[in-house]
């Protein structure tokens, strides 16, 4: 393992911001830590970088314990959320910084800077002032700067957080290609699930300083491990349920669940795609409270007439009922997940 954390703990004034975290990142792997703000993901990066001392546990790089190794000797790269470009230096000066620290000569620096700027799509920008760059350009310069010293591990803190949506979507693809090409090992943190899923080989969801779930984007998406992860991923149709065999008793009635579902008192997730709208006389009777156009489908918000929890359905564009209309609801067992 290139990076491994064992029981890594950081406390701020008694509160554990990082609580006994175990994490391993293999060479060439792209791992994305996903979590709401305050979940400790930035602290995780800072601890790995050596900017934040651990209160307990250990960080190892290439199997070597990093306790006592200062940040500038760890050979990892960190791209800050708001880039933190050096304002007094031009683009080239920023990119060359890490190379200079390593003692590279001027010629080597020049060559590297040119190549890196081409790589990030800013050819010939070396003499430009950083103050005059757009957000996207700054992000590219910051990336080139972090890549320049060829860190064994590149860490990205909300790498695309400040950018607009289209740019973000384009850059995610570019980054993934770039990292693949360079074989860079990446540990990124973000609060945006779309970004994480698009970028990562593996996603790690954090909650209150602990790791809630870890797995490939598909695994996490398909089988959120608990209500927190499900809700964080944007699923709102979560209700308490008592599972017995292939059925679960919920506030929405008796629902079919997969055969191998865990039994007993659980949380239960119905993905919006699994909420089917049927004639008003059938199934659970609901009133439509809102409709949100989602591009490929319409999210229909429903209020059950028996006072149960509200729920959301994904509906084809043409089939979506009007607000105020009454409708029946049935559930599709393949889109139902019994949470851990």
């Amino acid at each position, binding site marked *: 393992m290139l990076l491994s954390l064992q029981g890594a703990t950081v406390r701020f004034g008694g509160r554990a911001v990082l609580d006994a975290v175990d994490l391993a990142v293999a060479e060439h792997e792209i791992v994305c830590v996903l979590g709401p703000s305050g979940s400790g993901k930035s602290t995780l990066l*800072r601890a790995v970088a050596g900017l934040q001392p651990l209160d307990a546990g250990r960080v190892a790089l290439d199997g070597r314990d990093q306790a006592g190794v200062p*940040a500038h000797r760890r050979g990892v*790269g960190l791209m*800050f959320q708001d880039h933190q470009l*050096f*304002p*007094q*230096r031009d683009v080239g*000066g920023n990119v060359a910084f890490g190379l200079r620290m390593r003692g590279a000569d001027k010629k080597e620096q020049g060559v590297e800077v040119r190549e890196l700027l081409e790589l990030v799509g800013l050819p010939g920008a070396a003499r430009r002032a950083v103050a005059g760059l757009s957000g996207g350009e700054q992000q590219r310069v910051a990336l080139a700067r972090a890549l320049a*010293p060829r860190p064994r591990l590149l860490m990205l803190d909300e790498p695309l957080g400040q950018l607009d949506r289209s740019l973000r979507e384009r850059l995610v693809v570019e980054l993934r290609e770039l990292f693949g090409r360079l074989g860079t090992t990446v540990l990124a943190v973000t609060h945006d699930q779309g970004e994480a899923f698009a970028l990562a080989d593996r996603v790690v969801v954090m909650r209150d300083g602990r790791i809630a779930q870890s797995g490939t984007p598909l695994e996490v998406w398909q089988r959120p491990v608990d209500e927190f992860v499900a809700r964080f991923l944007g699923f709102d149709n979560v209700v308490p349920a008592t599972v017995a065999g292939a059925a679960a008793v919920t506030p929405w009635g008796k629902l079919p669940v997969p055969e191998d579902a865990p039994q007993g008192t659980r949380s239960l997730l119905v993905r919006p795609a699994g909420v089917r709208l049927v004639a008003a006389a059938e199934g659970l009777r609901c009133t439509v409270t809102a409709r949100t156009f989602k591009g490929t489908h319409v999210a229909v918000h429903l209020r059950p007439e028996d006072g149960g929890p509200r729920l959301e359905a994904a509906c084809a564009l043409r089939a979506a009922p009007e607000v105020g209309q009454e409708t029946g609801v049935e559930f599709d067992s393949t889109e139902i997940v019994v949470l851990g």
Partner: protein
Amino acid sequence: MGNAARLALLAGPVAFFALFFAYPVAAIVARGLKVDGVWRFGRITDVLAQSDIRHVLWFTTCQALASTALTLLIALPAAYVFARLDFPGKNVLRAVVTVPFVLPTVVVGTAFLALVGRGGLLDDLWGVRLDTTVWAILLAHVFFNYAVVVRTVGGLWSQLDPRQEEAARMLGASSLAAWRKVTLPALAPAVAAAALMVFLFTFTSFGVVQILGGPTFSTLEVEIYRQTSEIFDLSTAAVLTLVQFAAVGVILVVHAWTVRRRESALRLVDASVTARRPRGPGQWALLAGVLATIAVLLLLPLAVLVQRSLDAPGFGYYRALTSEDGGTFLVAPIAAIGNSLQYAVAATAIAVLIGALAAAALARRDAGRLVRGFDALLMLPLGVSAVTVGFGFLIALDEPPLDLRQSWILVPLAQALVGVPFVVRTMLPVLRAVDVRLREAAAVLGASPFRVWREVDLPLVRRALLIAAGFAFAVSLGEFGATVFIARPDSPTLPVAVARLLGRPGDLNYGQAMALSTILMVVCAVALLVLERLRTDRTGEF
């Protein structure tokens, strides 16, 4: 940077202040209050019970507060103009407004009378005479301290990102409201620092009060001087020194309290990109107003000095300066220029070294209370009488290996005491404004703590450092109180030489004093211009 490193950085400044400030001042106070080995603290209440002493304390504080307010009022627009507007001759003018700061008060008093005194500009125009009124004192304090505000506040202002203010304006704030809500809070530490320095300077004002206020106005500083030098009542002087300490201490606490909550990480940008040519009638009017103020309040008195120095055919007074047989000194008065420059360079080097170490150690905003306390202590020398320090040196530093009483180094050391607070105060707001993550970014890229300081802090703080060095240099060039004790007759400094020449009757002596003052002005302006040049002359790294 850990605590150990911070303490190591502080060791130099702490030793410096302990040895060359705390110890001598404590020694002279102890000499006054300790009789036969017993402390006589009863003296404190005795002295404070005197109504004229209380009056002096009251007047000292009031005039200092009023002077500070007036200086801020008049100089803040200029700080803006110098930071944000581009106009021809800006750099020269910035150096020129600093000139008053170095001039001996005796000379300035004379020149200032030409503005507010008999036959002065105000008298000619409106028949108004302000000499021997408190207004003359206040205006002269503005004259002296104008540059303190322009340079400390303007230095930070020129590095603030103007886009933040623009952002506020886009959100619907008027330009004044945008300034008040965005720029002013960001500038607050620098404004507070400038105000503090002006207050301390005016609180310990001596020559200005004497010359322009006449003998009816007296400050604590004058009183301490009288008690020490004339009456030789060291116990009263000691009590007054303690009172001065207490007053200055209160001000420092208030200052620390107001600043602490305001200092925050700021977006700093290169100063060269923030200034623009004036646009719109408002900015042109502001520029015109500031230039007019400078012309009347600062340039006119200086011009009077120059004119008087030229009042002999064929630069007669200047030529007389090169003659050794004037009888005033063992050397030609012109030699004072070289002496002054040597002392000033040494004092600036000491002040910058000590001040930069202290500022680096104090820069972290999570610095402990002890460290913060030291921050305030560094300011104390500005609020202590030169006479007290001079006498303290004499009785404290009299044993080998520290028998420095006759050593030349004492002059730059004494001058550096006043220079260090400038260096620290000018650098700290900028250092504290540097985003800590910028340093982390450098560290992660492989920069050791020292390289981080050199590569990240230094480029950002260089402007402040040069401003501070300019101040330290100017302070040293104009310093009189401590130098006059120590300067040898064969190596007088410029202010000492001016005072000597003014102390003698006769046309040639008076004219030479004016000529030397003019030279002092020019030397100061040139030195500051050279420093300005250094600032724009980038090194080859980028």
